[in-house]
């Protein structure tokens, strides 16, 4: 494309504005430049401080139990043995404190660890009368006679946690020495270690190792930095111009829309690129010149020609990132609104860049069609010396096409009369439903944040509590809060209408068909991004633990999520979004949102598919009830199947897939189910954007 005078003028204007605005300059250039060295130096400082602090690691230990004397004698050996023997960790000393009530002292923090040494019989009795913690190992016949050492600690205190860790390893060592001496004494010829020597030797060339390490992270780091840097200028450009009124001036000039977008896009790209470049220099300076010592793991040598190739490879990714940022800005009506949208956008851009970090992802798969992720994998392979030119070129083209599509969307966005001139001051005052429609994305984001914070910070071991609080409370409360806050009409906001009775036939057929379809989607995902089997198994166990009776599982896994998640997603979320998209877009969007609330990356495609199905049902019937029943039955069937309680259904299917024949059959049955629902449809009201929403002005 030719760089016309208007393009150059707009580019120049953007750069000049950036350089003259201290705030934007600070956020987009200075901050990222200072950030990495600051992190490195801070990390270095913390590390050295920790090392110093733990040099004279001294833990106070109380010994308790009927084998306390035996434990004390072992502790003396531990204290002697660890010094000089443990090369990796700092030396630790254990000061044995004699106390009357060691557990209380542990709770008070007067001691760090309690070492409880018990005879086997005492332990069993203790466990029975509740005076002793059973610990993770069940008592069995083989353990009989062996004394039991329990290390009691308080994980909320660093000294206690570390004391327990430091005590455990040498105790295991002592145990080994003791075992060997017993064996030797009873005539075993060699120490147990000598029976079979095992060694692992890394024979990979150092370049490949460095490449593998760097290749996994490079795309993520670079894209993360570029997105951060580019976002400041991007929000300022279109959204800021709308706010300041300069976009109107620009749009009445002779510059083509394409030229305006190109000029601005180039400016964002330039800033993003400059920041990435500065960061690389930064890293090189700090690591290469060993100003900060990070142990050589990141010190990588890249020959100039490879660096050039990397630059070319990253070009469409930079264009795509910049385009998405610009598009975000184009859709926002003000600076503030643009900033609001940025967080989810940043996440969406950075997630595919993180894919190369997952093990087992090959470029010769469907990942080739995922923009950014494909380039990330290509770069990783390239750095490991694995060059497959056709794949790399395809990856480049796919991302470049995505970038050009986004650019086109930007051009359309600044021609969109709604986005340009929409005057919403009236809605602002009337509040209620219109206000909710505008703020719905923010509320979804907030809910997502709450859910993330909840799931990652409040560890609830028992599935029943997790379901009741993490699902029932969160998704049950959200619609209530929203309805109250915006004074919505519950019947409309939650789609509490009765559907045509004929719909239920479609639902009954649809549930099993939907499960097969979703399993098919899972298989499809599995071929692109292989899902580790252990992960699926642990997920299955987490979902349907053996210890919980089946009727409770049905309540906590099927009924509660089925009702509350529907109230949130097919209730208020769908209601709030209904004007933003047409029916198809709405089904996809609400489905996707439903998917991303199930944080595990591997579950997103499948839950999103279920979400799309449930949204489609709600849109066709105008009622939340079919989706609710569908959701409950869906989860219930999955629970029953996992317990092998459905005749003719193999529990393995859930973790290993059903085979393509079943999935395709399921899909066809699903289509029939939808045909039935279509036949008796009573569509969801007011779907899709009104043609033009501008308030008329003179």
């Amino acid at each position, binding site marked *: 494309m030719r760089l016309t005078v208007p393009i150059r003028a707009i580019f120049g204007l953007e750069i000049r504005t950036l350089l003259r605005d201290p705030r934007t300059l600070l956020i987009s250039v200075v901050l990222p430049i200072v950030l990495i060295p600051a992190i490195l130096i801070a990390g270095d400082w913390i590390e050295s401080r920790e090392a110093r602090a733990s040099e004279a690691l001294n833990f106070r230990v109380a010994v308790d139990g009927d084998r306390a004397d035996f434990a004390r004698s072992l502790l003396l050996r531990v204290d002697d043995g660890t010094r000089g023997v443990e090369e990796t960790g700092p030396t630790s000393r254990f000061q044995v404190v004699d106390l009357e009530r060691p557990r209380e002292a542990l709770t008070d923090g007067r001691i760090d660890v309690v070492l409880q040494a018990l005879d086997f019989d005492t332990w069993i009795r203790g466990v029975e009368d509740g005076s002793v913690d059973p610990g993770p190992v069940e008592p069995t016949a083989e353990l009989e006679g062996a004394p039991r050492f329990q290390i009691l600690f308080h994980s909320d205190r660093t000294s206690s946690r570390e004391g327990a860790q430091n005590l455990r390893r040498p105790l295991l060592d002592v145990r080994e020495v003791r075992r060997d001496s017993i064996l030797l004494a009873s005539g075993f010829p060699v120490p147990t270690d000598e029976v079979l020597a095992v060694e692992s030797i890394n024979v990979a060339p150092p370049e490949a190792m460095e490449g593998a390490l760097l290749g996994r992270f490079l795309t993520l780091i670079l894209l993360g930095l570029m997105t951060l840097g580019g976002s400041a200028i991007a929000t300022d450009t279109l959204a800021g111009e709308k706010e300041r*009124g300069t976009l109107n001036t620009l749009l009445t*000039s002779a510059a083509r829309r394409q030229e305006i977008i190109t000029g601005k896009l180039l400016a964002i790209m330039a800033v993003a690129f400059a920041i990435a470049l500065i960061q690389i220099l930064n890293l090189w300076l700090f690591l290469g010149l060993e100003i900060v010592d990070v142990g050589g793991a990141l010190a990588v040598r890249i020959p100039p020609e490879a660096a050039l190739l990397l630059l070319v490879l990253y070009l469409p990714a930079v264009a795509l990132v910049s385009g998405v940022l610009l598009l975000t800005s184009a859709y926002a009506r003000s600076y503030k609104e643009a900033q609001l949208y940025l967080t989810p956008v940043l996440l969406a851009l950075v997630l595919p860049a993180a894919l190369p970090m997952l093990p087992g992802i090959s470029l010769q798969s469907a990942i080739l069609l995922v923009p950014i992720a494909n380039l990330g994998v290509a770069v990783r392979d390239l750095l490991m010396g694995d060059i497959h030119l056709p794949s790399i070129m395809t990856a480049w083209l796919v991302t470049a096409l995505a970038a050009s599509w986004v650019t086109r969307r930007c051009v359309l966005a600044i021609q969109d009369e709604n986005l340009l*001139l929409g005057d919403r001051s009236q809605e602002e005052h009337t509040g209620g439903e219109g206000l909710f429609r505008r703020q719905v994305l923010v509320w979804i984001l907030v809910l997502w944040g709450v859910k993330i914070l909840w799931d990652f910070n409040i560890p609830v071991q028992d599935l029943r509590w997790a379901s009741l609080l993490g699902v029932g409370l969160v998704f049950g409360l959200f619609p209530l809060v929203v309805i109250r806050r915006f004074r919505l009409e519950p019947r409309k906001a939650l789609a509490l209408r009765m559907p045509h009775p004929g719909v239920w036939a479609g639902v009954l057929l649809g549930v099993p068909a939907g499960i097969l379809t979703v399993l098919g989607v899972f298989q499809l995902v599995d071929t692109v991004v292989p899902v580790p089997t252990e992960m699926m198994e642990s997920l299955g166990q987490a979902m349907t633990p053996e210890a919980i009776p089946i009727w409770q599982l049905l309540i906590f896994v099927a009924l509660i999520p089925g009702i509350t998640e529907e109230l949130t997603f097919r209730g208020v979320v769908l209601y709030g979004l209904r004007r933003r998209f047409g029916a198809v877009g709405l089904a996809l969007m609400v489905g996707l949102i439903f998917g991303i609330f199930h944080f595990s990356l591997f579950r997103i495609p499948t839950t999103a598919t279920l979400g799309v199905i449930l949204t489609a049902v709600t849109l066709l019937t105008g009622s939340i009830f079919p989706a609710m029943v569908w959701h409950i039955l869906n989860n219930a069937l999955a629970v029953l199947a996992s317990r092998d309680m459905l005749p003719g259904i193999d529990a393995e299917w859930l973790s290993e897939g059903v085979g393509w024949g079943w999935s395709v059959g399921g899909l066809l049955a699903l289509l029939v189910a939808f045909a039935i629902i279509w036949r008796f449809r009573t569509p969801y009201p007011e779907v899709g954007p009104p043609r033009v929403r501008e308030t008329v002005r003179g």
Partner: protein
Amino acid sequence: MTDPFVQTRNLTKTFYEESRGEVRAVDGVDLTCSSGEIFGLLGANGAGKTTTLRMLSTVLRPTSGEAWVMGHEVRKDPERVRGNLGFYSASTALYPKITARETLRFFAQVNRFPRERIESRIEDLIDRFGIRDFADSRVEKLSSGMKQKVSIARTVAHDPPVLIFDEPTVALDVLNAIELRQIIAALRDEGKAILFSTHIMSEAEQLCDRIAIIHQGRILAVGTLDELREATGHHYLEEIFVHFARVRDPEEAELESLRRDRP
């Protein structure tokens, strides 16, 4: 007679509003504006003035009808249309971080003014609009009067034959408003075709060569002030405006006459 610089035929714009349904903001507007003429669009807020002018500047797309600027149709050739006009309104702001001189250069460039003549053009504009003293100050540091001067200078930076002033005096104090009207009159005398919208009757009386009275999206009458006086028998533009607005709303006119007839 030469072709008019601006011409519209049956220009219409409909919006959809949730509360009111389909709204015809501009309804079959026909107008012309020739070189050396100030054509006034007079109407209350919401009458359709801004929508008409935004369609002429190609920011909004007409729902139906046609409009030409210097012979270029707004939908078929929007870039040429915009290249031939300068658009000034209270909502067309300036970039705060660049200087007055940079502003003029920027708008000359994006409007494709011949490159070799840009610098001399900037100097001319700086002299003509009295910008010299603050030409190298950033726009954000200027007073509102100074900004107004820079704004007009940037509107004519590329020397367009057609100028659109959409309620230009709305946010100005009296002195600045008078100065702006003088500048607009001077631009007319240079042969520009000027479209001028306002809801202030006195302003239209003073400045406009021809006036179109626009009400609820329709042009109710067009003519010189004298022609309008003759047609209605009223002297003041305000009375003329009310006269036409009543004719447009027969129900309201009837009510009015009923009220008048009551003893």
